């Protein structure tokens, strides 16, 4: 029987799943993914996780529990850094420990450290470590890694062309309402685990798409453009996400086809608390592009969230109509 590896649908899932899936399948393992976030998963996560953690971490705990008794191994890598000279949130580095010490009766956890801060070559070492735990030979691991990187690059290309990661991963082809109005280009900045988990973000992407919005997410912006822009900052960004967000914000200033920018942050996020402010200052001071920060947390009352989102779209459309000299609203 094939070894069954459980991959929780949380945190960096929507960033790396195609890579992880290909890698494990090439090594002859079977993959099990937890279900889409729902209230049961959220409740389980909130109950079992430390209170100070942010919502996405709590949700991740729920996904772990959703998988716990269905798999032979849980894949929860210790993600220290995924890019040169940059870190990600420290909670990722401590994630396997947090999970192990809060939840009991879990299957063995593959908690290989992935630390690409000094060199991308560490990726091979990490892959070898995972392979050895599954008793695979080195050649097979090398081959699986190559193949999975290829799959990852393909996935990235699709995203850059405008596909949303959850649509690619779940092979969904959403049927959208026919645009009833001029299509707006709205750029959305946020962590993958907030942007693509439609339970956490209260179906924000669907709401936008159903309101004649062409979505551009931070992940669709070319990495080279982001790097180039980020280099113009007077200080190097310490965070991986910070570079992405700041590079994207600066890129917005160069474009004239962006009708509005939405920054989605989760309540209590340390990285966002800095970056959202920096992004806001850049966009507001250097441009007239409508900008809003939407904060998401555990509450399921959508009224406040919808009011802000609705009013933001009204504002963008109203302004556009005004510029087009057709004065009206509503």
């Amino acid at each position: 029987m094939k070894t069954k590896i459980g991959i929780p649908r949380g945190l960096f899932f929507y960033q790396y799943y195609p890579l992880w899936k290909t890698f494990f399948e090439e090594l002859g393992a079977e993959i099990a993914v937890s279900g889409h976030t729902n209230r049961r998963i959220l409740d389980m996560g909130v109950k079992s996780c430390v209170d100070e953690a942010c919502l996405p971490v709590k949700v991740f705990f729920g996904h772990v529990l959703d998988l716990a008794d269905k798999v032979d191994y849980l894949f929860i890598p210790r993600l220290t850094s995924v890019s040169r000279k940059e870190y990600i949130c420290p909670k990722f580095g401590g994630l396997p420990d947090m999970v192990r010490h809060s939840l009991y009766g879990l299957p063995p956890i593959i908690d290989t450290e992935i630390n690409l801060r000094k060199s991308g070559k560490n990726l091979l070492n990490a892959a070898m470590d995972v392979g050895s735990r599954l008793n695979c030979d080195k050649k097979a691991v090398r081959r699986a890694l190559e193949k999975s990187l290829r799959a990852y690059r393909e996935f990235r290309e699709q995203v850059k062309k405008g596909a949303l990661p959850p649509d690619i991963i779940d092979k969904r082809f959403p049927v959208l309402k026919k645009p009833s109005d001029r299509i707006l280009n709205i750029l959305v900045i946020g962590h993958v685990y907030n942007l693509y988990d439609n339970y956490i973000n209260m179906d924000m992407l669907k709401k936008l798409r159903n309101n004649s919005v062409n979505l551009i997410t931070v992940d669709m912006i070319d990495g080279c453009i982001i790097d180039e822009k980020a280099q113009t900052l007077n200080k190097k960004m310490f965070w991986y996400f910070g570079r992405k967000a700041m590079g994207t914000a600066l890129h917005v200033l160069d474009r004239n086809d962006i009708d509005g920018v939405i920054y989605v942050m989760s309540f209590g996020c340390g990285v966002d608390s800095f970056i959202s402010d920096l992004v806001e200052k850049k966009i507001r001071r250097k441009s007239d592009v409508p900008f809003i920060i939407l904060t998401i947390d555990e509450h399921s009352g959508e009224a406040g969230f919808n009011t802000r989102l609705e009013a933001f779209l009204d504002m963008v459309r109203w302004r556009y109509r005004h510029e087009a000299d057709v004065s009206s609203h509503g």
Partner: protein
Amino acid sequence: MKERELYLGIDVGSVSTNLVLIDENEKLVEKVYIRTSGQPIEALKRGLKMIRERLGDDANIRGVGTTGSGRQLAGAIVGADIIKNEITTHAIAAQKLVPGVKTILEIGGQDSKIIIIRNGVVFDFAMNTVCAAGTGSFLDRQAARLNIPIEEFGTYALKSRSPVRIAGRCAVFAESDMIHKQQTGHAVEDIICGLCEALVRNYLNNLAKGETLEDPVVFQGGVAANVGIVAAFEKALGKKIIIPEHYDVMGAFGAAVIAREKMMRSGKPTAFYGFRAVNCDYRAKSLECNGCSNMCEVIQISADGEPLACWGDRCGKWTAGAIHIERQSGF
């Protein structure tokens, strides 16, 4: 005589429920301001009843718009032609009553907002994020605690000679600060004045974020009735603040204006059910759907036992069968 064409705007908020009737020239004909008291349906029915008593059953209502946090509910009950968020309606109302307005300060029951207008359109807006400190419901609570009618709360502040400093960032801290200052013997006028100043300070920090607010500045929402807060704003900003005539029902007024525009444009008959709502028995039933592990909290509204509207489900299973009120709101 040709019967006047009227448009109804309804704003169901956390603290008050307001109804406004305007005529075809956007002149306000009737206005009703009542306390929601935690029962939005009852408040709405009372409001409609008052309007009917003043106008008679056969008033020629050509369009209805709803707004406020209870806008979905109100829209379902009366049959709204348009359901709009309160930022847009407040901005429209202010521009009608104070042409050329550039800054709108609005403090309601649980929300506070700032809206910046440039060239006649909403240029930017912000809503309170952290806490409801400084909004109407908090002031209500403090007035009740000090045993002062809310209507007189502001005049106390004006009598103060040396306001005390109160922490305004958090409602809980503000309250414990006030209690402490009372116990050390400060006069109640000075405490109330200090509270007003703290709330204004917090508002300007949290919402205006240090931006310069351009004249003319309009202050609306229920809290604009509080002269203490008005004085604190004028002191902090160093400029005169305009309180529009119908400051307390601006959301409803804006909703009526939007309804009028929409109906004029479309030329269609209104979706308004008429005043029969007054006599209907409305029931809101909430249930937890067990269809999947989302366990959505579904709300069903029925009128005299007939299902009227439904929302709260993520998949559309419940909303699909009921009247789809989302079509007017967009979401």
